[in-house]
């Protein structure tokens, strides 16, 4: 497996961990999304308390050639607040479901953050100068007595300590009856989509008072509801193409040139199921929790409860690759249903070159699959491996029978320690892995 040394296998090392050490986790601190920006210089996290924390990679230090820059706090702000919709008797959580960065166009950075109902465009800008030498004001802002002003001077900008300010530039509200699960910025960098359980809307980044509905799967009679939208994403290069996944394990690709309302898909990706294997759990575990296009745009990856699948956009009838994340859980589905873990929504991500995919699991384990070598590895995000440049030791779960030394048995896994959110730097081998309330950063070992 990866990390066993030799060849081109990556050796992952602990770099940093952020967050509280204590086991008593406050609900607000539960991390709900992690996302690198397009250059990888910034790393954003969102949490259940509606807060966003952005880390910035420090400039590479020539004397520290053995490691890349560390990520330090750059900005933090309250993105969303809890709300109560009195008309519908609906409590609206402030939890940040997704963050998506816009590509950088000028000195400022922009990101979209969303909770269940409202999407916000945030501008993060730096201020490192301030005007000094006003005529009518003292330096502390108090107004001077005009009679004491006897000379005039021109105020000048002087350097100040760097201040990073976040301000909400647009608020996109009141367009979703159901709960938003995805946002995705179009490759035109002007529009974006937002998806809830039953509908997908198209927005223009400049316009907040209207959006176009492009997918609507709400049945006329809600009793006939059989399927919901679980994730959606725009194609990285074709601005007319997007996909959305469903709770039934299907992915639909839609072309906005075909019609205004894309209820008719252009392509339907679905793996045929063996009817003799069908059980009560089949549909639940086939529900897709995440869909991500490869950087190339040729492939897309889906995550269902037990596996990761890679699909070639040119082939609808089955995935081209399937990777088992934790197949040993198939014989634990009954208890996983009882403790609701079967409904956990794991995300997945590609590395920059689309050669490796990563996803999380339980017991603070996360998995990587090398598409070329077909090797895989299980690693653990734990404070026990705290020393920088310590190479992470691969982990192994013993499904049944004799447990070897260093293996962990399925029954010993901690199902409360789930890694749902992971992110891979767009260019480097740097990964961000979120446990319940901690953010781990790992890097490959540089020689």
């Amino acid at each position, binding site marked *: 497996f990866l990390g066993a040394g030799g060849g081109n296998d990556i050796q992952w090392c602990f770099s940093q961990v952020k967050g509280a050490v204590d086991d008593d986790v406050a609900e607000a601190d539960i991390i709900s999304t992690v996302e690198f920006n397009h250059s990888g210089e910034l790393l954003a*996290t969102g949490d259940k*308390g509606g807060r966003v924390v952005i880390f910035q990679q420090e400039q590479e230090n020539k004397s520290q050639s053995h490691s890349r820059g560390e990520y330090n706090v750059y900005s933090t702000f309250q993105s969303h607040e809890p709300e*109560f919709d009195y008309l519908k008797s609906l409590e609206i959580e402030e939890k940040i479901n997704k963050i998506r960065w816009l590509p950088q166009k000028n000195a400022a950075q922009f990101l979209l953050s969303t909770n269940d109902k409202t999407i916000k465009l945030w501008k993060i800008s730096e201020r490192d100068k301030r005007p000094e030498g006003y005529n009518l004001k003292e330096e502390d802002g108090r107004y001077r007595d005009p009679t004491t002003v006897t000379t005039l001077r021109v105020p000048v900008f002087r350097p100040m300590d760097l201040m990073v300010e976040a301000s909400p530039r647009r608020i996109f509200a009141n367009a979703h009856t159901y*709960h938003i699960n995805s946002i995705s910025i179009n490759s035109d960098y002007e529009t974006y989509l937002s998806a809830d*359980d039953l509908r997908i809307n198209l927005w223009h980044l400049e316009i907040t008072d209207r959006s176009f509905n492009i997918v609507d799967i709400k049945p006329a009679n809600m009793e006939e509801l059989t399927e919901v939208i679980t994730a959606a994403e725009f194609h990285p290069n074709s601005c007319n193409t997007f996909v959305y996944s469903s709770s039934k394990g299907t992915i639909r690709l839609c072309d906005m040139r075909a019609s205004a309302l894309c209820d008719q898909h252009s392509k339907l990706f679905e793996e045929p199921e063996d009817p003799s294997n069908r*059980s*009560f759990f*089949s549909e639940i575990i086939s529900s897709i929790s995440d869909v991500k296009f490869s950087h190339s745009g040729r492939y897309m990856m889906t995550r269902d409860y037990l596996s990761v699948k890679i699909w070639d956009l040119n082939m609808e009838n089955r995935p081209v690759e399937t990777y088992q994340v934790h197949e040993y859980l198939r014989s634990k589905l*009954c208890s996983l249903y009882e403790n609701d873990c079967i409904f956990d929504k794991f995300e997945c991500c590609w590395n920059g070159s689309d050669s490796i995919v990563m996803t999380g699991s339980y017991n603070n384990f996360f998995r990587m699959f090398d598409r070329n070598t077909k090797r895989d590895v299980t690693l653990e995000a734990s404070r026990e491996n705290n020393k920088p440049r310590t190479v992470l030791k691969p982990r192994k779960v013993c499904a049944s029978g004799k447990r070897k030394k260093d293996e962990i048995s399925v029954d010993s896994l901690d199902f409360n320690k789930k890694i749902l959110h992971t992110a891979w730097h767009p260019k480097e081998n740097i990964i961000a892995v979120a446990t319940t309330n901690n953010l781990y950063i790992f890097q490959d070992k540089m020689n």
Partner: protein
Amino acid sequence: QDTQEKETVSPERAEEAKLKAKYPNLGQKPGGSDFLMKRLQKGQKYFDSGDYNMAKAKMKNKQLPSVGPDKNLVTGDHIPTPQDLPQRKSSLVTSKLAG
């Protein structure tokens, strides 16, 4: 291969049998709309401002509507009283990730 299939039950089917043994009344539809409906209704709170205000005004003497023939349908008790309503304040505390 045929005899092998008859002897070994797939792990999923075995788990399904376990679940059905525990919950015999489990829905006939395989994992379908019940979960979807629950998902769509996330966040729904049932709130009656009349009962709420009555509870707030501490009208202890006034009797709440008595339970109907169906003893499981006690509406009055299900409506939040001031002490039941969770305080929905935003976090004033900075995230510990920034600490």
